[in-house]
């Protein structure tokens, strides 16, 4: 448990001091919102509302790729990753610490990008704020768990920036489907979609257990 808290606090503290990942993810997310605004059309009609949740979650997902690419980059400096690998502790808790800090980062970005989206496209998120934040939290956990595992792999390959999205995006489809389904249901029907939430929860659980158990093989030298 100590390992988990130490890694979590370390990553959050580094991120708080530099804000490099957070800033680049946020700027990228806002840029995507602007480009979508031009691509979708200047006015948002009734028909377009149905695919706005999909665009929103695409923006959040692509911004998350930026943050996940940098997740282990700091550990590569001064060979700190070897220090992590040699630490006399359960590697699963190292993974939990890194994934949790990444999930917090992704969640805060998702909230800010959603705010920009709601302002740009005239969406009303305030009356569905708590269920929507719950959806963002669940989706962030799913993206962060698998993203941290694969980021740990790809950081030691020759084409890290290309390989991480190629590995991650297909496996994040269940999380994306759940998030988009839940958001669509909240925006259009003003109610929670149980099927979408179940898909999110099951995906998160499967990916969390898988990543916790297999992270030690990723960290090995």
């Amino acid at each position: 448990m100590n390992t988990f808290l130490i890694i979590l606090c370390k990553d959050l503290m580094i991120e708080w001091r530099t804000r490099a990942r957070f800033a680049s993810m946020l700027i990228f997310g806002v840029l995507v919102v602007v480009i979508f605004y031009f691509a979708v059309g200047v006015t948002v009609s009734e028909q377009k509302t149905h695919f706005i949740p999909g665009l929103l979650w695409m923006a959040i997902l692509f911004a998350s790729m930026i943050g996940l690419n940098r997740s282990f980059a700091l550990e590569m400096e001064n060979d700190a990753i070897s220090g992590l690998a040699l630490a006399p502790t359960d590697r699963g808790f190292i993974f939990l610490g890194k994934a949790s800090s990444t999930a917090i980062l992704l969640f805060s970005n998702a909230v800010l990008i959603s705010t920009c989206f709601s302002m740009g496209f005239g969406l009303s998120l305030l009356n569905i704020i708590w269920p929507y934040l719950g959806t963002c939290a669940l989706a962030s956990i799913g993206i962060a768990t698998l993203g941290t595992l694969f980021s740990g792999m790809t950081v030691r390959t020759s084409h890290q920036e290309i390989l991480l999205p190629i590995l991650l995006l297909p496996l994040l489809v269940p999380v994306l489907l759940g998030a988009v389904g839940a958001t669509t249901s909240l925006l259009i029907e003003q109610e929670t979609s149980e099927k979408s939430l179940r898909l999110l929860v099951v995906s998160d659980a499967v990916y969390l257990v898988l990543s916790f158990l297999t992270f030690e093989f990723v960290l090995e030298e």
Partner: protein
Amino acid sequence: MIWLRTTGWLSALLVPAYLFSVYQAPVDAIQGVAQKILYVHVPCAFAAYLGFLLTAIFGAFYLATNKRHHDHLAAAAAEVGVLFCGLVIVSGPIWAKATWGHWWSWDLRLTLTLLLFLIYVAYLLLREFTGDSERAARFSAVYGIAGLFVIPINYFAIDLAGGRTMHPENLKGDSLGSGMTLPFLLGVATAFSVFFYLWAKRVSLRVAHARLEARKRS
């Protein structure tokens, strides 16, 4: 070698028998000759699932035992699985064009099959881009196990969608008409036999390549 020879001879016997049975099979009254693509499409899908399942199983064995041979089995199964999945994605749209009038629809089953194909292509890319072979084996084993999650979702996609899909339902006992069961079963047997032959061939090539690399290093 015995495995390679056995599956090679079995495939050589089964392929002509299968082709003959497909030729002799009755033509469907509604779909016409296009219905015969079923005898290729479904067996290839089963072979692809088998390939990806074996990739995950031998990947898990490799992580548990650290034996190089398990990695060779996993990687070879992924390669052959990707080949068969590619055949599924090619044969399906040919049938779809003849029956639905268009090559592709973003139906859940079709989309998940494409996703499965992309996942295991990514597996092969991961192996290619990871320089160190032992590290490539470990990383791809983890990724192969992660990809397994999509297979049951793909197989039960039609049930999960409550039957509201364009893709035909999974075959059950009485799904096939009279005279169609034999070519279908021969198709499955041939696909599996060809799968095992190609798998054995790829494993022997990988082992030979590994021995050559070891000799170069020493």
